[in-house]
Each structure stands twice: as C-alpha cells, then as structure tokens.
C-alpha cells in the first residue's frame, strides 16, 4: 500500500511541472491556434533565471521564483510582439517559428551556461515520512505551490472580467472584438500568462531534478501530449492530462521499460492526434 502511495506522490510531483507547461500551451493554442513548441524552452529559461538569482536559501528561492515568473512572462510577450503576432493569419508558420526558437534558445543557453546539468539549493532540505511514504519537502512544496497557482489561475479565468474576455476570444475572436474586447492585447496577455506558468514550472522543475539547456525539448513533447490528452484549448483538461501522463510514465518505468518511454510517448501522441484530435475531453473545434 505504501509503495502505491509513494508512486502516487511521485506522480503528482512530476504532473505538477507537466501541468504548468501544458496549460500555457493549451491557453495560447486556444486563442491563436499556434502550437508553440518553444514553450518548453520558456520553462528552461525560468530555471536558469532561478539559478542566476537564487544562490542558496529559502528566501532566495522565493525571490528567484518570482523573478522567473516575471522574466519568462516578459520574454513570452516580447516573442509574441516580434514573431508570433505576424503568424496569426497562418498559425502553421507560428509552429515553424517556434521550432527555430528552440534552436536559438537551447544553443544560446548552452553557450552561456554550458551544456552540463545544474541544480538549485533545496528550498527545505528534509524528508517528511507520513504513513510509510517518503515525501521530500521540496516535492511537497512543488505540489502545493502548483495547486495554489492553478487556484489563482482558475479564479482569474472564471471570476474576473479579463478572464471572461480571454475565454470569449478563445471561442470567437471576431465577436469578442465586437464586444469591445482588445483582441491583440488579450492574446499578448495570454502569452504573458503562459510565460508566468512556465516560469513557475521552471523554478519548481529545478527543485525536482537537474536542468540542462536541452530539457525544454524533451518537456514540450510531454507538455503537448498532455495538452492533447486534455483537448487542445481546454485548461482543466490539461491539468487532468498531466496526471494521466505522469501516471503512465510511472507505470512504464516501474515495468523497467524506461528506454522506451519516449517511443511510447510519440506513439501515444500520434494515436491521439488521429483518433481524437480534440482530446479525450472536449477541446476547441479543430479549425484547420
């Protein structure tokens, strides 16, 4: 029983990072139809901001966490203004642009920070044991922190005027404009929102495992698979999809098939795209 609970705990902590990534992917896709594969690298940039700002100690981690969220949000808006805004009429070009961005960000990071793995000083350096389950405090911090971020996000999207407009633009941008919704600014805002989530994910991810400049590429494939499972454009679906993927991974690794994880991941992605392009839950209409 405690082995099972241990797996659940591990699943939840990696699901947290996947969810922070995938919700950003799904939000941006919902409003722009752009599949931004550079979103995984935004997360890595968040980790490196944390490394720069937070040498050691809990207070420094909090400062680094905030800095990562802000810096990545700013970066995301800059990318939207410079690049992605020009691809709104043909979202497939936005996808290609993001592939180019991956090359730039990953080789840039490894040029400036070397390609080796980096870790951050633990936030709370101890392990709590509850009912036979070993819970490193930092993993608890990640799970609780992610839950708090998503509570705030849900409140923003469901209860505020700006959040309502984001949902309206995702459903029908033209009519949202007729309501007086500043469509281009809303899209930039969603890039910022996705950037904040990626920044948080990067900081939390650094608490869980070492980070390399090339982590973003591996992560985005998972993040996109998660967004697909939940239905592209569906925020709650992405949160749920993250748990599904993390659980699947836990199972595959438990059966000693870890070298095959990414192959199975791509196969799953292809099958999902062919069979249920709108996801297992309801996503936005597959407009093509």
């Amino acid at each position, binding site marked *: 029983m405690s082995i099972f609970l241990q797996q659940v705990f591990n699943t939840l902590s990696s699901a947290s990072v996947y969810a922070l990534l995938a919700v950003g992917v799904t939000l941006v896709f919902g409003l722009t139809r752009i599949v931004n594969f550079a979103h995984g690298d935004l997360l890595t940039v968040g980790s490196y901001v944390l490394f720069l700002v937070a040498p050691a100690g809990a207070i420094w981690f909090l400062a680094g966490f905030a800095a990562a969220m802000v810096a990545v949000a700013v970066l995301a808006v800059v990318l939207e203004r410079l690049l992605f805004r020009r691809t709104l009429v043909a979202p497939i070009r936005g996808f290609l642009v993001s592939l180019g961005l991956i090359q730039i960000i990953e080789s840039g990071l490894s040029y400036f920070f070397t390609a080796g793995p980096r870790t951050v000083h633990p936030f709370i350096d101890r392990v709590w044991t509850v009912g036979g389950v070993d819970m490193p405090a930092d993993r608890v911090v990640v799970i609780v922190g992610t839950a708090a971020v998503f509570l705030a996000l849900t409140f923003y999207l469901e209860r505020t005027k700006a959040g*309502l407009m984001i949902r309206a633009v995702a459903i029908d941008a033209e009519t949202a404009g007729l309501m007086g919704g500043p469509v281009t600014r809303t899209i930039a805002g969603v890039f910022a929102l996705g950037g904040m989530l990626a920044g948080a994910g990067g900081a939390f991810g650094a608490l869980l495992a070492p980070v390399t400049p090339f982590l973003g590429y591996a992560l985005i494939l998972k993040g996109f698979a998660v967004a697909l499972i939940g239905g592209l454009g569906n925020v709650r679906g992405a949160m749920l999809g993250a748990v599904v993927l993390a659980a699947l991974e836990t199972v595959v690794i438990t059966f000693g098939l870890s070298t095959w994880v990414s192959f199975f991941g791509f196969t799953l992605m292809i099958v999902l795209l062919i069979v249920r392009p709108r996801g297992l839950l309801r996503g936005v209409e597959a407009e093509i």
Partner: protein
Amino acid sequence: MPEVLLDIVDLSVNYGPVTALRGVSLQVAQGEAVFLAGPNGAGKTTLLRAISGLERVAGGSVRFAGATLHGRPSWDIAASGIAHVPQGRRCFGPLTVDENLRLGGYTRGSGVAEAIDAAYDLFPALKAKRRQRAEELSGGQQQMVAIARALVANPRLILLDEPSLGLAPILVEDVRVALHRILHEFSTSILLVEQNARLALSTGGRGYVLRSGRVVLEGPSTELEGRMKEAYLGG
C-alpha cells in the same frame, strides 16, 4: 432634422479583386431607425462589418458622432458606442447567458448589473435561463441573447444583421416588439439589415436598397414599399 449620428460617405470595400461595396453613402440620425434591404450578396452584411471595423475599408469614410471610425480596430469602434448584433447571432456558446451579457457590458465602467437587469426586463424568457450555456438555448432565444448582449453596452447605435433569419413567425413578432422598445425606451438608433420586408418596413424609418454593392434606392419606408418590389425584381 435631428443630428446625424452615423455618416458614411462614398464607402468602398474589396474582397481581394472583387468589389463588395462601391461608393456607398448612408446616414443615420440620432433616434432614427434605418433599414437596409436588397438581394443576397448585395453587400448589406459587408456594410455593417465595415462600420464595425471587421472589414478593411478601401475608400471613403465612416464617421460616428463626429469621430472617424474607418481604420480603427473593432474594439475601439465598439467602445465608441456602436453595438453590432452579427449575422447568425454568434453567441459565445460554451458561456452562460449571464456571461454573454456581461461581455456585452465589457466597455462600460459601471452600471453593468443594472443594464443586465434592464435587458432581462426586455426579454423575460432569458432570465430563467441565465445560468445555462448559450448553446443549449433555442435559435430564437439565442437571438434574444445576442440583442440583449448588444443593449447591455448601452450603445448609441445598434447594428442588427438579419435578426429574424430562421425564426418562426411568432418569434419574428417578438423581435419586432423588441426593436420598437429599443428605439423608444432605450432611445438607441438602429441600422437594420432585414430580408423580411414587413419587419423592415414596420420600423417606420427610412430605408436604403443595395444591389451589387451600390445604393440603388433610398427614402422613407412608406415610399419604398411599392418600389422595393421593382428593385428586387428589376434589371
């Protein structure tokens, strides 16, 4: 003659190489109801979309309450006091009726709750469904949502694109009553695109008949009634 609210002069719109509107001039005065008629493809919807900033204006000008509209994005135009009820209603299907109406009030700083109550007074049937998703409503009710959503913005001018399309005759009567009340109780001016000639003429104001992107007839509805038949069938 009351103050001219909407003043369109020599407006042209192109769809690629195709000219959709050429040299259209049209005025709507404060408190006036004006209807646009004409066969399918005449450019009526394009004209409303050009006013709202959804189509790129190739030539001419659109002025509203003295300010230039053409070339500005749709949300600026909405904020300047024009509400557009688009063709096909375009309710936000996955959102509730209440949320749809709150979006209507997006440009207002205050008084949204009161405006929503006033809209529910106009369409009491919607009040019972306020927590339902708009896509679950019937076509007629969705039309009510679209009109109510426009009214919550407290516009000075409301553009309506075929509000009776696909509605049962009894619901068309509801629309007629609603238009009457919008004009007289909300003192909002109306620019109405309508195929249903009886509904169009019942607003009692002036009308324009478009054909192939041009204005071919204009005048008070009483005069247009007879001549519209010729305009539809002729040449």
